[in-house]
């Protein structure tokens, strides 16, 4: 009705020419692989020197945590750890474009993003240690649990964004999806809900070229994943996912558009998973060493460092500071791995319901009695 404020469930009007929603011919790139600064019309990384150093330090930390966790996994001190080496620009550049009040919905490969957002890596890695779940402070950090099923979290992200709008809160939600997850039905349903209700969501598709072994050509015959956006009435953006400034600029633009009611955006980041999918994977069966080496030369951290040093924002001293800070976190992770962590067997009953059912109380009682009946073996006596 005339004069009424727009409904929080109403989308922004479509542009007269929907073609403006299509991604550009070239991926957004603000840094050449050698670190040279470039321009890309419509995309600006509004980071001052302090912000640039924060971005760099967060990427250094992300890589250190990732490498440390992978090494601990290979040593058998952690269980399966899905590494994201080579994806630091996408993982961190995107998250730093959020405001304090915003929410992040990561996947199992986004430990880097969760840590960049402030989640304690030890708490996140507890799931990999298999002594618990992803146990970071979900509500305080506004980092949802790292989703293991593909794409289901995209709907949670959209629902949370709709709820924030219904409550009148200017909250934006960033949700990570892989190129494989983009084929799941929930990806479609989430993007469609977000479009229909104008939900303030940024869908960040981490296109790292492979879903375990399956190449992205088997996920879509479209010109790109970002091209799908126009079908949902939202803009699609393709970004050089190894360019931290470009990722930051694209996500920041999407966040700024979403917050006042402009609706969702699909940002496709083109990057590469340097490591295997997981410990059980053998990438030599589906990709060549030459391909991996080519992508190694696009190292996102090296690219940003070259730019920052040339711009006079980063020097040896500051780089060492960032490395030292990351090393301290890595040392804390190692110390935690070395210390025993023995969860209470009875804790499996703790949080199934707000108030336990009588049947569960009875099962817990039986298990408790069973545990009490287990007599620890007497220590062997030393031979006389």
């Amino acid at each position, binding site marked *: 009705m005339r004069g009424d404020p727009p*409904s*929080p*469930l109403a989308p922004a009007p479509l542009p007269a020419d929907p073609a403006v929603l299509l991604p550009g011919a070239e991926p957004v790139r603000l840094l050449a692989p050698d670190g040279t600064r470039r321009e890309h019309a419509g995309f600006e990384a509004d980071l001052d020197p302090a912000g640039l150093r924060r971005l760099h330090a967060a990427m250094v930390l992300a890589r250190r945590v990732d490498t440390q966790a992978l090494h601990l996994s290979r040593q058998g001190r952690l269980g399966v750890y899905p590494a994201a080496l080579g994806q630091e620009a996408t993982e961190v550049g995107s998250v730093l474009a959020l405001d304090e009040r915003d929410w992040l919905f990561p996947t199992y490969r986004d430990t880097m993003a969760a840590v960049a957002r402030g989640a304690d890596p030890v708490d996140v890695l507890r799931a990999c240690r298999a002594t*618990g*779940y*992803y*146990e970071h*402070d*979900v*509500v*305080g950090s506004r980092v*949802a*649990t790292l989703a293991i*099923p593909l794409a*289901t979290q*995209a*709907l*949670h*992200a*959209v*629902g*949370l*964004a*709709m*709820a*924030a709008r*219904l*409550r009148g809160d200017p909250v934006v939600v960033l949700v990570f999806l892989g190129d494989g997850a983009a084929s799941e*039905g*929930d990806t479609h*349903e*989430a993007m*469609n*809900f977000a479009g*229909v209700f104008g939900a303030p969501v940024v869908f960040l598709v981490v296109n790292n070229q492979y879903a375990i072994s399956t190449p992205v050509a088997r996920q879509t015959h479209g010109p790109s994943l970002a091209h799908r956006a126009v079908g949902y009435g939202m803009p699609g953006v393709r970004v050089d996912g190894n360019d931290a400034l470009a990722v930051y600029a694209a996500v920041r633009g999407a966040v700024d558009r979403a917050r006042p009611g402009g609706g969702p955006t699909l940002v496709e980041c083109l990057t590469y998973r340097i490591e295997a999918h997981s410990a059980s994977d053998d990438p030599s069966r589906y990709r060549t060493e030459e391909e991996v080496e080519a992508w190694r030369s696009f190292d996102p951290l090296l690219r940003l460092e070259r730019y920052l040093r040339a711009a006079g924002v980063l020097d040896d001293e500051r780089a060492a500071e960032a490395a030292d800070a990351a090393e301290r976190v890595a040392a804390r992770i190692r110390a935690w791995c070395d210390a025993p962590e023995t969860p209470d067997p009875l804790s499996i009953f*703790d*949080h*199934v*319901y*707000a*108030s336990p*059912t*009588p*049947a*569960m109380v009875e099962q817990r009682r039986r298990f408790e009695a069973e545990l009490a009946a287990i007599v620890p073996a007497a220590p062997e006596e030393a031979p006389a």
Partner: protein
Amino acid sequence: MTTLTDPASSTSWTAPAEPVATTITLAQALNAALHDALAADDRVVVYGEDVGRLGGVFRITDGLQQRFGEERCFDSPLAESGIVGTAVGMAMYGLIPVVELQFDAFSYPAFEQIVSHVAKMRNRLRGRVGLPITIRIPYGGRVGAPEHHSESPEAYYAHTAGRKVVTPAVPADAYSLLRESIDCPDPVVFLEPKRRYYDQADLALPVRTEPIGRAAIRRAGTTATVVAYGPSVSLAVAAADAASAEGWDLEVVDLRSLDPLDTETVFASVRRTGRCVVVHEASTFGGFGGELAAQVQEHCFYSLEAPAVRVGSFDVPYPPAQLEAGFLPSVDRVLDAVGRVVGP
């Protein structure tokens, strides 16, 4: 560590001081419960397919959008996983979503969201966030509908811990159990017996019946216990009426909720009668009746005069409507089962 307090509604409702009973249907009782829940707590939102302007294909959400506005009751895209998945995110933010999945078999696209997230998020997040979601699903057959519109999916949902499974059989319970489900800090799969939508009762609203987790004895008797729920309770009562001609005095227990399951009431009844028949519309193999019969044998063995018997539908796909009468449990089949537990 930040913890969301359980965002469940703290509202309570009591019967009016001078209740005036009117004749209402089970469908109207559900509708009244939704009206009253939306009025009681502004965090409650109702959405799903066709629930807004139309008021739902069964009119259970009739008048909600007109009264509370589109922000409290709205039509969603036609996507069940999307409906339940977005409810998870809404509940994480502190809302209390009540979603409708239009028909039983159309709840299956939402299966992953229900069993992997709705039921498990509180546990996964170690109690930091609860999901007070109510998922309404009209279920059951004998309404002459096409395939996929008559199924009984309760065993699928009852098998996964972390959610409650509730199903009313009478109008008073339809109101009270739905209000309680919406108030409940845990998620509830709320199964509505669509074939009983137009059953009537004289009722003064609001009404509060026994809480979730308590069964009700619909008919007291001594010969055998017939356990039923949802659409099968009326069938069990009809069988009990018919059985009196045979000189059998049947007790009918209405479970009202499958999980939590009121074994106390069931076991006490079976120990009194020494005989037990379980009735439901779902296929017998792997059905909820198997769980109930197993628990009865385990806990009431020395009181039983005969093995507990299940009366479900046949283990074939739900047939075309012209064949459903032979597929579903009937009064005769319940009486036949009673005959088997009573003996010659």
